[in-house]
């Protein structure tokens, strides 16, 4: 029995290891190619490692400006999303009305709304409102599109803060908003951080929305400007593309590490999915 257990455990580990290797293979390419002067399309150890690719892409037009645009765009949207979803989650979590369930179901449905489907009329709306090619307009739309999931997540976290604490504050004459700011928020900051970081990561990788709503090269975030590597010049420089991909990925990687360090592996999603 014990021997059989050990065999089955070994098999499980081996299967898992095999799957892990499959997942890591494509990732190896970007790591090796970025330090390879003559990078091609296959995974190969660079014979003469170099930082030349990084040096080549680290300039204003290729890297600094798109990354900065991305930070403004995604940071602004994430802040707006967090503000709106915290405010919205409070009444949903604290006051049970007939309105809550249908509203939350609508929100859940919107969570999965194919945003690609809405882009045609949104583009039309932006033309009408003169918002095409403005960072502000794009921030508004990106924030809105991530609101449903953020509201859902924030409400779940807020439900975890016992209401009895606020009741004491209410007795002492605090308003709802005061209770939210002084009592609820300090107790659920890890949850708020999760919502914010998740929203940011989602937007950082979002290609379609800025691709549709922004036009000028000097406003494009990194997720779109990466396309310029495949310009009219034919074969792209794969080494530089890999180096740029790594630089572009770095912020979300750091945020994700921060998230999992602070809050432990599977943390938030479980709570959100329980519904």
């Amino acid at each position, binding site marked *: 029995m014990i021997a059989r257990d050990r065999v089955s455990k070994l098999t499980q580990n081996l299967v898992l290891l095999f799957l892990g290797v499959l997942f890591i293979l494509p990732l190896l390419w970007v790591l090796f190619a970025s330090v390879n002067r003559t990078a091609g399309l296959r995974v190969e150890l660079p014979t003469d490692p170099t930082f030349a690719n990084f040096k080549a892409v680290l300039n204003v037009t290729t890297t600094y400006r798109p990354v900065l645009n991305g930070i403004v765009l995604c940071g602004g949207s994430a802040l707006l999303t967090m503000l709106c979803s915290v405010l919205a989650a409070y009444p949903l979590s604290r006051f049970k009305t007939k309105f809550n369930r249908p509203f939350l179901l609508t929100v859940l449905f919107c969570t999965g709304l194919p945003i690609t489907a809405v882009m045609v009329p949104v583009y039309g709306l932006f033309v009408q409102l003169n918002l095409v090619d403005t960072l502000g307009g794009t921030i508004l739309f990106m924030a809105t599109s991530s609101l449903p999931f953020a509201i859902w997540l924030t409400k779940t976290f807020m439900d975890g803060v016992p209401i009895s604490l606020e009741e004491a504050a209410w007795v002492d004459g605090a308003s709802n908003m005061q209770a939210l700011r002084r009592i609820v928020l300090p107790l659920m900051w890890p949850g708020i951080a999760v919502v914010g970081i998740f929203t940011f990561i989602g937007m950082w990788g979002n290609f379609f929305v800025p691709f549709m709503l922004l036009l000028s090269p000097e406003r494009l975030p990194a997720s779109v400007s990466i396309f310029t590597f495949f310009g009219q010049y034919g074969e792209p420089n794969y080494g530089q593309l890999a180096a740029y991909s790594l630089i572009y*990925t770095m912020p979300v990687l750091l945020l994700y590490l921060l998230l999992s360090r602070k809050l432990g592996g599977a943390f938030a999603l479980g709570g959100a999915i329980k519904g």
Partner: protein
Amino acid sequence: MTTTAPAVPAPIGSKPADQSGPPRGAKLFKMLPLAPAIGLMLVFLAGPILYCVYAAFTNMALTGTGAANVQFVGLDNFRKAFGSHAFTNSIWLTLVFTLISAIIGQNTLGLGLALLMRRSTKVVRSFVGTAVIGAWVLPEVVAAYLLSAFFNTDGTLNVILHKVGLPGQDWLYAAPIIAVSIANIWRGTAFSMLVYSAALSEVPKEIEESAEMDGATGLRRLIFVTLPMISRAIMTNLMLITLQTLSVFGLIFAMTRGGPGTKSQTLPLYMYEQAFSFSQIGYGTAIALVMLAIGAVFSLIYLRGLNSEAA
């Protein structure tokens, strides 16, 4: 916003939710913090969707007759769509893509990984977890480039295939929809894995152990004990990943642009081409409406599953 709201007199121990008949005005006032979120969603989500419904029945276009004078054309756009090979082809590809990459791929692989990780050694677990999540946090376009390189004639996949004596080929040319499906599995499995890890961690150990005592083998235990206990998570996960996958655009666009020809042109790419490359706004929104309808059908199926579970 912070100072003028009246305190809610709530005696300790009673939930304000159960207050009997607070004045209507006060109730509205309490829901006021919802206003910014609702406002944004009305303008930028509900508005465009309603507009979608309107434009889908017109001949709206950026050029030609539909640009100068927008007219109702009834069901013409839908008739045109369902009569067109390119459209039915894209519906078909979208369903194949969703079935292979989300429902079978991400879902099953995510569940498998989560199950295997429960009993694996810590080192293996963190290695695999990092690899899978690493693929997930990569921005969409970067993921697309990595996988394009992987599937290319000169790419890693063919190198491996040659090593074991199998013939390679240009995967993105020969089997583009399979290639982009695998790319989507590679990129999206982490989400399902995290969801299932969380769900499994809440299954009480005693229940599985007692099933084991009763002589249930691994597979039977999984089917009759473990899976039913996480069925809510399965339904929710299926719903989220199906809807996400239906609207995947950037990954396919960056890998194949829908090609070669239209061999990987899913609905979002077809819609993009019609509405923006060919300027047929009316026709494009009709396609968008079909997409929303497909999403709604999937949601309803899963929501039914959820509700029957809850009951």
